[in-house]
């Protein structure tokens, strides 16, 4: 098992894909903070100078100014759980789906699964090493993502003359751990689809579609009929939302009425663990029972 893991890591660090995904994350972190600062600051300047275009439906300027000032405060390092962690979590779901499906699916596409298995690797051990490297990558992603958003937050706060004190690394680490936990079912799902259909592209496409659709459907269910909340709360997205919620610091833009109907965190942990176990178990079963042929 350790030999497999070592070989897996050796091959993985020599692929471009993980580095590109991490690079995009770092770039987006700085871009988001700069964009939020530049756009909100420009709006603020316009409102203060009275040069903002008149909109009869908009709230009074002083209300808008207070709202924008509040948004600017989320750029502060002390508010990283509201903006930075949200970026890492939101982008991360896409990144881990893409990466997981690719990590499993390319073995079929390249035909290397046969080569590796013929070299003596056990199927269960191979899949276990794949899952472990997936979790390892997700951990690296979260650490890099949070480091980048922290750096971007300090940089932009300095530019904006915001208070840079109050950064609590413990709170950020806790939020990072919750984010990582929320990735697990999505990673297991994308890997399962790629393995089942022997296709990296199929795993990526199906993983993303399921992710967006499930999130949308549960949202609609909850909005249109509160009775469906209990059903929706057995899905993935609402439990991920519940687990990601940090006390007293809901993500920027979160709807309080939606947050109030989210499952409690114990239920969220249990449901997410069950989904992950189900997807992983199906993956093991599929690989163990399948003939590895050329077709």
């Amino acid at each position: 098992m350790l030999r497999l893991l070592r070989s897996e890591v050796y091959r993985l660090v020599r692929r471009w894909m993980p580095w590109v995904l991490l690079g995009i994350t770092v770039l987006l972190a700085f871009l988001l903070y700069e964009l939020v600062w530049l756009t909100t600051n420009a709006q603020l300047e316009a409102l203060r100078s009275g040069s903002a275009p008149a909109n009869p439906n908009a709230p009074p300027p002083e209300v808008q100014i207070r709202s924008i000032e509040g948004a600017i405060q989320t750029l502060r390092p002390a508010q990283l759980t509201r903006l930075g962690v949200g970026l890492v979590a939101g982008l991360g779901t896409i990144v881990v789906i893409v990466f997981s499906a690719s990590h499993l699916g390319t073995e079929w596409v390249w035909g290397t699964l046969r080569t590796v298995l013929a070299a003596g690797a056990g199927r269960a051990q191979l899949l276990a090493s794949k899952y472990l490297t997936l979790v390892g990558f997700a951990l690296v992603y979260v650490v890099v993502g949070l480091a980048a958003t922290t750096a971007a937050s300090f940089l932009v706060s300095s530019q904006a003359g915001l208070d840079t004190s109050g950064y609590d690394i413990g709170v950020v680490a806790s939020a990072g751990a919750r984010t990582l936990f929320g990735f697990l079912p999505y990673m297991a799902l994308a890997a399962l689809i790629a393995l089942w259909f022997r296709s990296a592209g199929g795993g990526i496409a199906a993983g993303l579609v399921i992710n967006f659709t499930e999130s949308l459907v549960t949202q609609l269910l909850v909005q249109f009929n509160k009775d469906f909340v209990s059903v929706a709360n057995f899905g993935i997205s609402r439990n991920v939302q519940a687990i990601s919620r940090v006390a007293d610091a809901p993500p920027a833009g979160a709807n309080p009425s939606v947050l109030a109907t989210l499952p409690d965190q114990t239920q969220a942990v249990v449901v997410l663990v069950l989904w992950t176990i189900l997807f992983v178990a199906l993956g093991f079963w599929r690989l163990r029972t399948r003939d590895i042929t050329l077709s």
Partner: protein
Amino acid sequence: MTSSEVVLRTSGLVKRFGTLTAVDRLDLEVHRGEVVGLLGPNGAGKSTTIGMILGLVRPTAGTASVLGKDVVAHREEALAALGAMLEVTSFYPHLTGRQNLTALAMLRGGGALSRVDGLLKRLGLGDRGGSKFRTYSLGMRQRLGIASTLLSDPAVVILDEPGNGLDPAGQREIRELTRELASEGRGVLLASHLLHEVELVCDRVVVIQKGRIIAAGTIAEITRGGSSYQIVVSEPDRAAEILRGLDGVREVRRTDRGLEVVADADRGDQFNRALVAASLYASAIIPRQSSLEDVFLELTEEESPGAAPAS
């Protein structure tokens, strides 16, 4: 050089895909120090058989074992003594040849890592070991595939179409390497479409069709039953009638020069006696030993595999 120790054995190996029986009760043995050719037309079941030996394809029935270890029950120990080059050599395209071998050597453990550079040199890839696999020609891919089989210094080597994509010089090198592997005391199972290659390299051959063994033995044993004779005779039509009635004659064809008779070996004097008895005098009876290719085509073109000289 061949020893009596069986290093690879399949017993009653069966694989069914739905209603299709791809491999049907296949019994095969490879001894230490010998090269066994596995022959058969496309779809005969060669790759499925190899897949079952490697544990890639699950047998419906029967067993395969390496050094006495069942490949299903004791997969790790069995495959530790086995190196296999598959028909389509697949490696990681983003890695160099050396990195691909290193990654596989890490899986293998033991002293495999220390063999990487030596194997690259042995297979003529020493100066291209640092190039990405995706830039390799087909021949280089085949060489890398063969190198990968030797990482664990295995007792059994399976080579599935190793000559694919190689130029004549490359094919000759592979033939020499195959013999070298056997002389080092390994058992080699060679699946190939290049019958000339098989004829030159293999100690024994096993011919399969529709998943069943239709012939097996040494090259001499296999080709002995497939001799042909060129007979130059007056009244060839009458001569053909007489020859068709003789034992051991399988086919008589008219040619520009007379007759071509496909029959068992050493039948020339029998033909001569029969023709003389009918007052027909042959001016020439020229025996021609069939090549493996002749026999292979004859065996696999027959509609009923059961009628073939299986052994």
